[in-house]
């Protein structure tokens, strides 16, 4: 089914639902999922409502198409550019000039915290405004539509990225911030818009260089701090000779744990909230840029960018639950059993079949960064519990893909494997883009914010029944 046709179909379905149908006719939707190679595509084929399914069986061979270098050029929003989304949804600018906007979190009192990891390095046009990284607090107006007050919570940080309030619940005492090299926590009370005291170093000695985003999150009981550390390189091509006793190495560094300059990278690490009791929680997750703990279950999820240079359509990126002690493949394996012979240190046939399957496979090179779960309260009731992710967009693909927000339906807290084009329209022709989505965050009122770091904009997505 062509995307436009599908869109009309979905609108009809949603209308029927709005007019009194109690549930979306899931069987009808299931028939309209584009699958396999048809699900893979580029920005020309994106349309609001298109539901996609890529499975393990659809993974194409490496270099079936050549590896492309197609870096997007970034531009200001063209005058005729329009954001597209599904019927009943509205996308409005919530905040502008938030240069380099990355991760978004909401404090219990409703303030919006945004990490501006590299505010000066992504600005478009002549207006250079170089600064080190910072965290900005945006206080929403009473109607939630705009920002009524802006403050800098803390500045002069090296690549601040992930943020988490601790302890979980209505009265946090600290804001944890993940950045290259360390995790700090700042004293925090509801309503603070500026840091009120010196930070405490919770984790030090984290690696510098390579994949630099360090996302953090807490288990719902507040007992565990999770920290994502991406790989140093694309595929560990120069990794030194393997440790002499691989079994002993894996006991300390986890199944499939890499070594050399990749030691304990491509991992999710776990700590006590005071930074002690460090352990390797999961391995082989190339770059978990969006670490999110599912609220109902406490399950850790990662939005992950898979490896480059294998052609337009392999291997898929993924969003997945990440289980303790499990190995997700990098660098030797992708998607359970596809061997990659490029890593240094020789092949690892012993790991074939030992990599855990990911929940949702996403068009290769889409670059999912942030993710969140819909708590309900505004979007269609059937979407409560669904996951959403921001796709930063491709460079290693002949035609651009990604550059959109997707919805990943869940059933009984499990992602079912499909994903749906939800918000898009940031491309301006084959080369240029005016928005690269970075993070999605649902607010208490059920609306959704998302950030983009080309022009430094935060958008708010709201819904009313059409």
């Amino acid at each position, binding site marked *: 089914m062509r995307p436009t046709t599908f869109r009309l179909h979905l609108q009809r379905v949603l209308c029927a639902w709005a007019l009194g149908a109690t549930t979306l006719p899931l069987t009808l939707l299931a028939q309209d999922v584009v699958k396999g190679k048809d699900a893979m595509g580029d920005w020309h084929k994106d349309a609001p409502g298109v539901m996609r399914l890529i499975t393990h069986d659809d993974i194409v061979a490496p270099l079936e198409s050549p*590896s*492309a*270098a*197609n*870096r997007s*050029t970034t531009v200001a929003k063209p005058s005729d550019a329009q954001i597209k989304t599904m019927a009943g949804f509205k996308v409005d600018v919530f905040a502008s000039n938030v240069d380099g906007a990355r991760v978004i979190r909401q404090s219990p009192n409703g303030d919006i915290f945004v990490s501006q990891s*590299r505010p*000066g*390095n992504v600005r478009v046009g002549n207006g*250079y405004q*170089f600064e*080190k990284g910072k965290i900005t607090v945006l206080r929403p107006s009473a109607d939630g539509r705009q920002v009524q007050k802006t403050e800098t919570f803390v500045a002069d940080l*090296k*690549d601040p990225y992930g943020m988490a309030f601790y302890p979980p619940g209505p009265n946090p005492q600290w804001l944890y911030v993940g950045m290259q090299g360390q995790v700090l926590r700042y004293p925090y009370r509801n309503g603070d818009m500026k840091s009120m005291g010196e930070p405490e170093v919770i984790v030090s000695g984290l690696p*510098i*260089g*390579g*994949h*630099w985003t360090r996302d953090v999150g807490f288990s719902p009981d507040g007992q565990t701090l999770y920290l994502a550390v991406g*790989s*140093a*390189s*694309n*595929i560990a*091509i*120069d990794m030194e000779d393997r440790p002499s006793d691989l079994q002993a190495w894996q006991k300390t560094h986890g199944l499939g744990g890499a070594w050399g*300059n990749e030691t304990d990278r491509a991992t999710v690490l776990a700590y006590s909230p005071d930074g002690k009791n460090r352990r390797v929680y999961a391995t082989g997750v190339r770059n978990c840029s969006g670490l999110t703990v599912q609220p109902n279950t406490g399950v850790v999820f990662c939005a992950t960018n898979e490896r*480059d*240079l294998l052609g337009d359509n392999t291997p898929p990126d993924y969003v997945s639950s990440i289980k303790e002690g499990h190995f997700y493949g990098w660098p030797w394996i992708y998607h359970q059993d596809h061997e990659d012979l*490029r890593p240094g240190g020789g092949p690892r046939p012993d790991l074939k079949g030992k990599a855990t399957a990911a929940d949702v496979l996403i068009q290769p090179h889409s670059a999912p960064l942030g993710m969140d779960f819909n708590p309900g309260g505004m979007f269609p009731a059937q979407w409560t519990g669904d996951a959403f992710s921001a796709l930063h967009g491709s*460079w*290693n693909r002949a035609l651009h893909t990604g550059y959109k927000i997707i919805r990943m339906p869940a059933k009984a807290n499990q992602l079912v494997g499909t994903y749906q084009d939800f918000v898009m329209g940031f491309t301006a022709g084959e080369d240029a883009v005016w928005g690269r989505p970075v993070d999605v965050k649902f607010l208490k009122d059920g609306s959704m914010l998302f950030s983009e770091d080309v022009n430094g904009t935060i958008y708010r997505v709201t819904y009313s029944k059409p």
Partner: protein
Amino acid sequence: MAPPTQAQTQAATSPTATLNIHVCGECHGETGAPKDAKLPIIWGQSAAYLEKQLRDYRSGQRENQIMNSMAESVPKKELSLLAQALASQPWPQPKLSDNSAQSWSSATQADAQFCLTCHAQNTSGESLYKGAPRLNGQNADYLLDQMMAWVNQDRSNSEVMGPLLKNKKKEQLQALSLYFASH
């Protein structure tokens, strides 16, 4: 430009290196002038510098999402050949000709002369300090971006650059970037 050495000629005609020059050209320009002024000119750049950067991108010591991967697309033993092949290409014409008539402040000129104690090229096209990149004629946006990355420690694959630049003001660095772009 000095005539290419034998090694450079061989590099430029090596099939892999020629292929890779073409791949580099996707972003850095088919004729050496990048489409986007935030990207560096690499044609005619110091071979020693280019090789070190390619190695540092592979290891993650220099960080750029695209280059970290692209540098892996060249076999390690061919990095040197690729660097030489790129270095043997002619440096493209500087774009910022409109700035060449600008009269530079004595402070900027003094700053630039200090930089050139390492970055100036000798007659055979190599920098006075081997491995220091050519700055003259480089894209201003790129130069400023990199100088700020040294200051902010977003780039740290040289021990000297961060300390040398850290006390400079943004305006001083902006003037320097325009100075070199127009020379």
